[in-house]
């Protein structure tokens, strides 16, 4: 299974612009992010609360869909998925 993770803004600073994970840890987006958090403790600090919950309002898209409207952190991964991580941008 191959998953592509594209990171933007602050997350890009930590993990780089894009990475391909050939055998990602876990079968869900939550498990994949936990695995990335282990590899990049700074990313874990940016994305998760001390109670290990995903911080609110972070945008995680899988193939163009926000996981908030799928199964959230339990959203399953499939071969070829493209994941985009970007922070809330709300100013005008």
């Amino acid at each position, binding site marked *: 299974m191959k998953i592509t993770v594209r990171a933007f*803004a602050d997350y*890009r600073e930590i993990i780089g612009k894009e990475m391909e994970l050939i055998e990602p840890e876990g079968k869900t987006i939550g498990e994949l992010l936990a695995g990335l958090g282990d590899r990049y403790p700074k990313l874990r600090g940016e994305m998760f609360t001390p109670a290990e919950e995903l911080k*609110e309002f972070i945008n995680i898209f899988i193939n163009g869909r926000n996981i908030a409207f799928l*199964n959230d952190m339990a959203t399953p991964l499939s071969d070829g998925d493209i994941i*985009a991580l970007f922070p809330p941008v709300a*100013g*005008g």
Partner: protein
Amino acid sequence: MAEYRIDRYQRQITLLGEEGQERLRHARVLVAGVGGLGTIVAADLAAAGVGLLRLADNDRVELSNLNRQLIFRTDDIGREKSVAAMERLHLLNPDIQVEGISQTIDDETINELAKDIDLIVDAMDNFAARFILNKAAFSRRLPLIHGAVRGFFGQATTLIPGNTGCLQCLFAGNPPGEIVPVIGATCGVIGSIQATETIKVLTGRGKPLANRLFFWDGQAGEGTVITAKRNPHCIICGDGRSDG
């Protein structure tokens, strides 16, 4: 077309044709929010000859606005933004109509604000207000041009009822209010993209940022387009079912 219009819009008539220019002249656009984004979008659209611009904002000009809200001057401080902007844009282009409305956008006021409008530009500073615009745009089947900024970062997408999802398909919740750090140039990038999208949609030129989200990373010096799909179960534009 009148001679003075051919002169004024010469550089873009070459691109859009007289027909495209006439489409702009007959268009009526609501610019919701006259802040960092709204001032850029409104100035671009006024100069381009969009026939009617309705500018809605309830704030007054503050000193700290002037790093990015380029149409205001230091002696505008304390004045209503919508009125100061209306005056300035009228001086920029007396050939168009500009309405300045000092009103907060809510579920009630949006009805009058969106009346007889062809397209809405989202230049708000919070998602609660953006979702009000989104609902109004999709119930009236009007295109909505979304933009948002923070720091060196910004995003923009074009939402077209019947063709794309809506803002509520893409974003969940309303991030808490804050004094948003931003340089004026970030507003310039995103505001200009919103103005470009508006002109494209109104004239039918080019390929709109539909089903795609443009993300600007000024820190890295790079813009990226990511796929942004409709949620078939969306509470605004889908069937409203919550079973994911």
